[in-house]
């Protein structure tokens, strides 16, 4: 494994394209894998725009040339990867399948990270061919603008794998905060609950989404309020993550409220579909 081997990113959705942008913008080659050709086509256009946005906002260096991007539906294309970032849909069964298949293809010694929002690392490690080479790297959205990342060390993660991942993250300008394992880790154990409660407040007619977010930005100094954040994440992903948390903690506070469920059913997934709690005037 050399530092010029590509970074493999599995899943070309909101986060997969963002993570690809982060690596490409720092000059690293990327192989981006999805099951859907139409998704990959959209991802190509998105990455091009995000590279611009990253530079514009100072999240990516302006001087470095872009890395080479390959998009494919063929998982065997990741064989020579330097590292693998799993970022497929937040469904435990699907993630396990993808991880089993991916770790069967790559060379031993290749670190594999999951970008899961809430599934415990050790639960997913079960599916990996080499659980010691596996850990969590929970990127923030969008990863090419937000530099802090939640790195999750599972009980079976080796020092070597952790060190390799921290080195790679350093190369792409990310500043890791390493934490322990558990449902939702730190960020989402708290954030998903806040989003759910905020949606419930709107559902009960106590406040509009604008009012909820104005209080969090104005009073608490958050950059965006919980519902603006939910629209950025994708409400489908919020509901999936809440289910993951509910199933693993038994804590009813995580049961997705009716308003969230209704919006997802209606196809109002937030920014990615143009409408969620807010109207985004078409898909950006």
């Amino acid at each position, binding site marked *: 494994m050399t530092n010029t081997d590509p970074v493999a990113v599995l899943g070309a959705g909101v986060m997969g394209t963002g993570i690809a942008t982060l690596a490409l913008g720092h000059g690293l080659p990327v192989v981006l894998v999805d099951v859907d050709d139409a998704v990959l086509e959209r991802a190509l256009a998105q990455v091009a725009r995000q590279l611009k*946005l990253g530079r514009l*906002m100072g999240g990516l260096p*302006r001087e470095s040339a872009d890395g080479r991007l390959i998009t494919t539906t063929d998982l065997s294309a990741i064989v020579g990867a330097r590292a693998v970032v799993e970022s497929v849909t937040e469904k435990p069964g699907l993630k396990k399948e993808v991880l089993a298949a991916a770790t069967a293809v790559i060379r031993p010694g290749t670190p594999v990270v999951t970008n899961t929002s809430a599934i415990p690392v050790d639960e997913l490690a079960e599916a990996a061919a080499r659980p010691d080479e596996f850990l969590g790297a929970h990127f923030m959205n969008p990863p090419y603008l937000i530099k802090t990342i939640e790195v999750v060390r599972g009980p079976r993660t080796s020092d070597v794998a952790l060190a390799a991942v921290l080195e790679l993250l350093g190369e792409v300008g990310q500043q890791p905060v390493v934490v322990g394992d558990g449902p939702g880790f730190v960020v989402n154990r708290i954030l998903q609950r806040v989003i759910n409660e905020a949606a419930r407040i709107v559902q009960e007619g106590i406040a509009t989404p604008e009012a909820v977010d104005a209080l969090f930005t104005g009073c608490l100094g958050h950059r965006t309020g919980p519902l603006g954040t939910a629209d950025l994440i994708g409400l489908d992903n919020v509901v999936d993550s809440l289910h993951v948390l509910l199933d693993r903690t038994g804590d009813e506070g995580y049961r997705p409220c009716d308003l969230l469920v209704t919006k997802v059913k209606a196809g109002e997934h937030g920014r990615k579909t143009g409408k969620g709690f807010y109207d985004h005037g078409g898909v950006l």
Partner: protein
Amino acid sequence: MTTTAETRDADDVRRNLLEFLKQRAKAEVEPDFDLFAGGLVSSLFALELVVHLENAFGVTVGGEDLKIDNFRTVDAMTALVVRSGGARG
């Protein structure tokens, strides 16, 4: 009315951008108003501005031009379009 880089001048660009901001950001601003310091637009909207400049005026914004100072105000964006050959000065 469609215009081309030859027939378009800086005032056309300025008008187009003010109208765009009115529609998309729901705000009437002065050409020298700092959109970012004023909290009017988010980082995602900055990208929309780039894409709008490229589509409306047929310019490509890349490399060193991709910095926020070029998009801070309607005047700055207008200057960028002129500099990139999208309109007469």
